[in-house]
């Protein structure tokens, strides 16, 4: 889905027994974008990235009709899926940007294939666990409570965009299947051992956190920094768990600043 005027195309790419659906837009060095549990939309943040990069935004596998998830029993197979997808796309080295669950997968990919990832941007990633800051169980609460967890302003337009009509069981089900395909990799606790592997990441890394992230507490920022060889953390005011959408300007500035330094 495109919510901007940018020119994008959707490609279907065969990856072993699976078919990846990839939105491609922009020109420049290749950039892989991995979305979070809310799903993939071509939003202004991706538009901004596409101004200086060829963006490959991948639909997370497993929410459709097929048996994709049976081929991807765990995070290891998911990482190999992305590694193989890069081969199929003919991309040797890429910048990887991931949000939330996509941030966890991005970090895993960079740990598994450090030579493939030259820059890493993690927006409010999950993947680590701090007992003193437990990440709430998003399946074990009323959906109506989610906006207050993930948005600094739970009454704004982003909150309305997140709503699934309660009187539409089919829409509810499709939303549940999308969520199921994410929970498949992180149930019951989103800690699948990244802390044992993250030291392998060699790419310079930018971490971005919304100050009012009540889903993944900003305390996770320093925890990630502590595990990484070369990392910097930017905290954004007036933003929750979707900082790139809720307060886009400072996020764009931080991300573009970070990515532009590569050429210098």
């Amino acid at each position, binding site marked *: 889905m495109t919510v901007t005027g940018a020119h994008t195309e959707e490609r279907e790419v065969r990856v072993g027994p699976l078919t990846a659906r990839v939105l491609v837009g922009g020109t420049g060095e290749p950039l892989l974008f991995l979305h979070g549990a809310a799903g993939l939309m071509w939003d202004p943040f991706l538009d901004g990235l596409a101004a200086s990069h060829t963006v490959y935004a991948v639909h997370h596998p497993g929410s459709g009709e097929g048996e994709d*998830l*049976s081929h991807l029993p765990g995070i290891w197979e998911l990482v190999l899926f992305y590694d193989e997808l890069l081969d199929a796309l003919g991309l040797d080295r890429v910048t990887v940007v991931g949000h939330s669950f996509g941030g966890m997968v991005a970090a895993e990919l960079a740990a598994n294939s450090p030579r493939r990832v030259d820059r890493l941007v993690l927006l409010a990633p999950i993947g680590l666990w701090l007992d003193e800051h437990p990440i709430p169980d998003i399946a074990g609460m009323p959906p109506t409570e989610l906006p207050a967890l993930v948005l600094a302003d739970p009454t704004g337009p982003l909150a309305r965009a997140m709503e699934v009509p309660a009187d539409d069981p089919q829409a509810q*089900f499709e939303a549940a299947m999308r969520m199921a395909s994410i*929970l498949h990799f992180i*149930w*019951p606790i989103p800690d699948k051992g990244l802390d044992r592997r993250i030291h392998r990441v060699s790419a310079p890394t930018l971490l971005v956190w919304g100050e009012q992230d009540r889903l993944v507490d900003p305390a996770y920022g320093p925890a990630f920094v502590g595990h990484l060889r070369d990392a910097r953390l930017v905290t954004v005011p007036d933003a929750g768990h979707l900082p790139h959408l809720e307060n886009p300007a400072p996020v764009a500035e931080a991300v573009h600043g970070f990515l532009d330094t590569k050429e210098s």
Partner: protein
Amino acid sequence: MKSIFFHLMPYRDLPVDFEQRYESIWVTPPNTELCDPRRVAQYYQWNLDELELADALGFDGVGVNEHHQNGYGFMASPNLMAASLARRTPNNSAIMVLGNTLALYAPATRVAEEFAMLDVLSNGRLAAGFPVGTSMDVNFCYGVTPTETRPRFREAEELITRAWTEPGPFTFNGRYNQLRYVNPWPQPLQQPHPPVWLAGGGSVETWELAAAKNYTYSYLSFFGAKFGKKLMDGFWSTMDELGIDRNPFRAGFAQQICVSETDERAEQEYLEHVTYFFNKCLHIPPYFFEAPGYRTRKSTEFAIKTNQPGAIAAAAALEKNWKTLVEEGFIIAGSPSTVADRLIEVARTLRVGNLHALLQIGSMPHELTKKNITLFAEEVIPRIRHIWDDEGWTHEWWPSGAAVRAVTAEPAAQV
């Protein structure tokens, strides 16, 4: 029709304002706040006394099941209860364990072993229940990934039945169970293995398994036959499509039942305890019912097509007064003849040969429960026992070591 006294083992003394103060009866009701082990010690004695009474009075079976972190059923291990019953049911009722939640156990050979032990201990009286399990138990309490619920169930079902029937040792290379040596001691007494009773809430896949493996299926819900009609129609049309006969003993259903001397007296005696059950024991938020991925696409499409979500919401929204509960069929209550007439009608409507009679409901105290069990055994069972006789079906799923009460005999023992 076979009558099984099915005991949920609820907490009978929840606070009056429980449903206002707490999120859920299941998964999160805080244990130290709400569950007093001294009270539970008393409940367990009552529960087992009630089940043993049912055996003595001539029920065909006594039933227990598995739930976790649940205020309406804290029988984390039904096998422990069944072991106790195996030794204290001299009238040789079937021991119905409905069942062990297979997806929770890896290796699932644990279930094969414990069920085999129970079968041997009870001299072949075990019915081995294989429920898929609720999302509350499987996903939330035991942390099984929702999308793995059914694959784990199916793999465990295969492993257990093979462990019971194939000469050991053999090797089993599953996705969730990898065992170099499968060789349980003992294998079950019943041959080829204890009858498998599937239990569920209407998943299409479960019906197909029942057909493929010739298992019996029990529809377990608390909303009665009116609600269950669409589901059981779905079950039978699946059987028809797959070329399976319409033997009513392939199917069972659960029903809350209150028997008294008269219809009026039933309301006076039972209303409080039944409303306790519906208001407190079914106080479960929708998000616990179905973690995303718990249900398959196929079953969800069937659920949407038959408007299950709407029907559940409508049932939940009803005020649980006596008239509504009786009219909607959530309970079958009244004098023995009223109860028997309704049960016969319901059994014929759903075409079921196995009745899981829920006769201890909510806060129902021990003495009233004994009265309910006794009136049911003495006044209702004789009227419903023979309703399928004229069709001449064989009950292929009844444990071979259990007493067959084909004629209504004098109970072997009085309590």
